[in-house]
């Protein structure tokens, strides 16, 4: 499973220890104590201990903590292959042209206000998002049996869905693939679901453990929730083939499982929005129900704006209406209503034919650049004669490559080559460029030959 070992904690840093020591020596503490005493009005006043006295420092988030550590590194050759945020050839973050255009249109529209959105979010955004993932001709949409709510990117949409399931679904177990995004188990556990795993990744082949998947799900109790990555599995980049998806679908439907799709990379995997949504649409086509969480963080580069959606495909419009009303009860005590800015940008782009087409072109360019990075890295490792079979680099799909490197090798690469990645050996291809591929290839070569 991804990200179990914490990264560097700020409290361990030398600088912090020095400062703490100095301040102690300067009598900082005793000054503060006397300050407390002089301010208290009564001899019976509280002793000034915090009610949160005993709190320990939490470990850094395994994924976001990588960037924290990277930022602290002064090396000029440092490379951040941790968090999945797209970078250009020049290593810069990218704001899509369509996004800039959409933003300008919004700013120049003097009639726009910043009022509260409804609890379920921006209505146009919700409709367009459902259409994007399910397809404009989806029977579920035409029959109005999809309840869609705007969510705080993928994380927030998953959380709202999970909270709903805990309240309204009779089976509180969710099966997640092994491995999966590090935050998945946290989201589901805190919502009150019991998390179990099913085999997914085969380290021997660096591909899908299809037999293991079928066996584990076959043994799972009927009615459990099953988490599926719609495309570009994170962290492995290993996706089922269409034939394998069909078998998975049959198994899931025959066991009455509730499929919960996480779609964070639509358009990013193959370069085609429709192709990347096939898995979800297959499940809708059989008439059954499902949950789908969407994120626009990567495919529209809107990371920090926290734009996403949760769609619940139901049997009937009446059910969808009631489901939506209950989703509101989850959202209201969490953040009342979702943020306006990012959703407005998305709605603008999806709702305008020209902007939409431009977006598909920019999206394909990003996907193509990543595919090119895969090829370059593979070639570089082959040309160095790095031991091992590295073909999985070009077979895997999406933003990430599960290199197969172990924690020792990863730590070595960070220490000696200033390359930052999550300790499970996952690298974000989006963080590579033609310029930096050689450096990475050198590092992998060294790590693999040093720690076989």
């Amino acid at each position, binding site marked *: 499973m991804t990200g179990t070992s914490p990264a560097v904690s*700020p409290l361990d840093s030398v600088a912090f220890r020095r400062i703490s020591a100095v301040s102690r020596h300067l009598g900082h503490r005793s000054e*503060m104590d006397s*300050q*407390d005493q002089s301010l*208290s*009005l009564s001899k019976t*006043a509280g002793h*000034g201990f915090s*009610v*949160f*006295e005993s*709190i320990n420092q*939490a470990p850094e*988030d395994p994924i*976001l903590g990588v960037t924290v550590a990277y930022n602290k590194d002064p090396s000029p050759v440092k490379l951040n292959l941790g968090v999945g*945020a797209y970078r250009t050839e020049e290593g810069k973050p990218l*704001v899509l042209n369509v996004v*800039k255009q959409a*933003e*300008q249109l919004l*700013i120049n529209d003097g009639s726009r*206000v*910043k*009022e*509260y959105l409804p609890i379920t979010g921006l209505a146009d955004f919700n409709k367009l998002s459902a259409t994007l993932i399910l397809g404009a001709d989806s029977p579920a949409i035409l029959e109005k049996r999809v309840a869609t709510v705007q969510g*705080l*990117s993928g*994380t*927030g949409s998953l959380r709202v869905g999970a909270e709903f399931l805990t309240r*309204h*679904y*009779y089976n509180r177990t969710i099966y997640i693939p092994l491995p999966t995004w590090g*935050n998945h188990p946290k989201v589901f556990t*805190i*919502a009150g679901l019991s998390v179990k795993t099913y085999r997914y990744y085969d380290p021997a082949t660096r591909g899908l453990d299809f037999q293991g998947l079928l066996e584990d799900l076959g043994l799972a109790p009927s*009615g459990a929730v099953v988490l599926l990555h719609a495309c570009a599995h994170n962290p492995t980049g290993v996706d089922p083939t269409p034939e394998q998806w069909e078998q998975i679908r049959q198994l899931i439907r*025959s066991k*009455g499982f*509730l499929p919960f799709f996480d779609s964070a990379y639509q358009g990013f995997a193959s370069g085609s929005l429709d192709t990347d949504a096939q898995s979800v649409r297959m499940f809708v086509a*059989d*008439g*059954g*129900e499902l949950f789908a969480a969407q994120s626009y963080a990567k495919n529209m580069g*809107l990371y*920090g704006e*926290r734009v996403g959606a949760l769609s*619940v495909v*139901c049997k009937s419009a009446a059910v969808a209406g009631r489901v939506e*009303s209950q989703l509101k*009860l989850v959202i*209201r*005590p*969490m*953040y*009342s*209503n979702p*943020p*306006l*800015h*990012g959703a407005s940008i998305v709605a603008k782009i999806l709702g305008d034919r020209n902007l939409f087409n431009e977006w598909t072109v920019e999206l394909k360019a990003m996907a193509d650049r990543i595919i090119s990075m895969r090829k370059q890295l593979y070639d570089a490792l082959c040309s160095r004669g790095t031991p091992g079979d590295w073909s999985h680099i070009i077979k895997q799909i999406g933003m990430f490559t599960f290199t197969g490197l172990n924690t020792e090798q990863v730590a070595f690469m960070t220490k000696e080559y200033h390359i930052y990645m999550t300790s499970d050996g996952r690298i974000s291809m989006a963080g590579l460029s033609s310029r930096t591929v050689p450096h990475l290839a050198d590092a992998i070569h060294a790590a693999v030959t040093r720690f076989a």
Partner: protein
Amino acid sequence: MAGKMVFSCTICRKSAGNDLRFMSSWWNHVEPAPKDPILGVTEAFLADTSPNKVNVGVGAYRDDKGKPVVLECVRQAERRISGNEKMEYLPMGGSVKMVEETLKLAYGENSDLIKDKRIAGVQALSGTGACRLFADFQKRFRPESQIYIPTPTWANHLNIWRDAQVPQRTFHYYHPESRGLDFAALMDDVKNAPNGSFFLLHACAHNPTGVDPSEEQWKEISYQFKAKNHFAFFDMAYQGFASGDPERDARAIRIFLEDGHMIGCAQSYAKNMGLYGQRVGCLSIVCEDEKQAVAVKSQLQQIARPMYSNPPVHGALLVSTILSDPDLKKLWLKEVKVMADRIIGMRTALRESLEKLGSPLSWEHITNQIGMFCYSGMSPEQVDRLTQEFHIYMTRNGRISMAGVTTGNVGYLANAIHEVSFVGGQKLYLAIKVTSLFSFL
């Protein structure tokens, strides 16, 4: 019952793996949820076709023409950041710059607590998000604790602490007879609560009543809190909006800080910067020292991560752009005062209109109360009449959002209130008298 459904479904499913159209839904048993009492009002208002309709429901500022307002300082900030804005992930704790500026507002520009880095501060999803982060944090690290909530309070407070699974108790706050503060009962509740209890306090412009303790009363409350070692959590959603002066509106918090309380505080920019839909706020917790503040912040981030990973960047950028630029900040302060002054003006206008109509009832609470809301004292039935007969929309607890009152509608509003609160009553009184006369005959 759901189990039975699944059993029969399993049988169908085994034979119909390819066509599930005839199976029933997993969600048949899901009840329609009740409408949110506050946000549901605006929905109903929007659906009303009457030309006279008035929305004094949700607390969103309107100008004198009844239009929503985007502050000029916000427009300028937006033009400045557009194009430059990187939309990368913020850290889990949000924009450090925004949090820094926000803490200064609550704790004071020259706060020692800030200098000593004793405050754990994280960006949150407006006031709701800040309260929820705190409630979850309270549950996790003080699982045995309860939260004392004033009666009445913003309805969503109850939802927030309930979903965080923190048991709730209430303390006296509003005094219906005087339409003011029930100070004696409040102090009794503070004294009778077990030592070390957690209390939710509205820092200023109490929602929904508009009734705030006086400075003297705040001092007494703080003193009693100290004696009882209570924890004070302030929800400050209206700083600047109450009096027009943010420093003045933070007075309750400053009193507590002067007394050495280590408070928690939720701040929102929804109203005072008009950033409603951007969801910008901050949660802060005062700690013993910097080390503890770092630890507490890290734990707050752990709560944020499985909820939304990291908070939205746009609104935070607007706030930090405005507050870190002296000219924009000055402009903001001016615009906040304009909003607060208009509301104070409308309070006066509404009260005078009612008095001019010859209402013998007392309406001085309209100008005694402060902030966006006025607790009119009307009953749910009277509110229903206002809606059905006059197309005036407010929450059924009789709370009027003064921000929705304009010079254009204050007369109509006063007339309607007079009708349902007195004239109706007067007619009823006469009817009873006449009927009793007849029965005597």
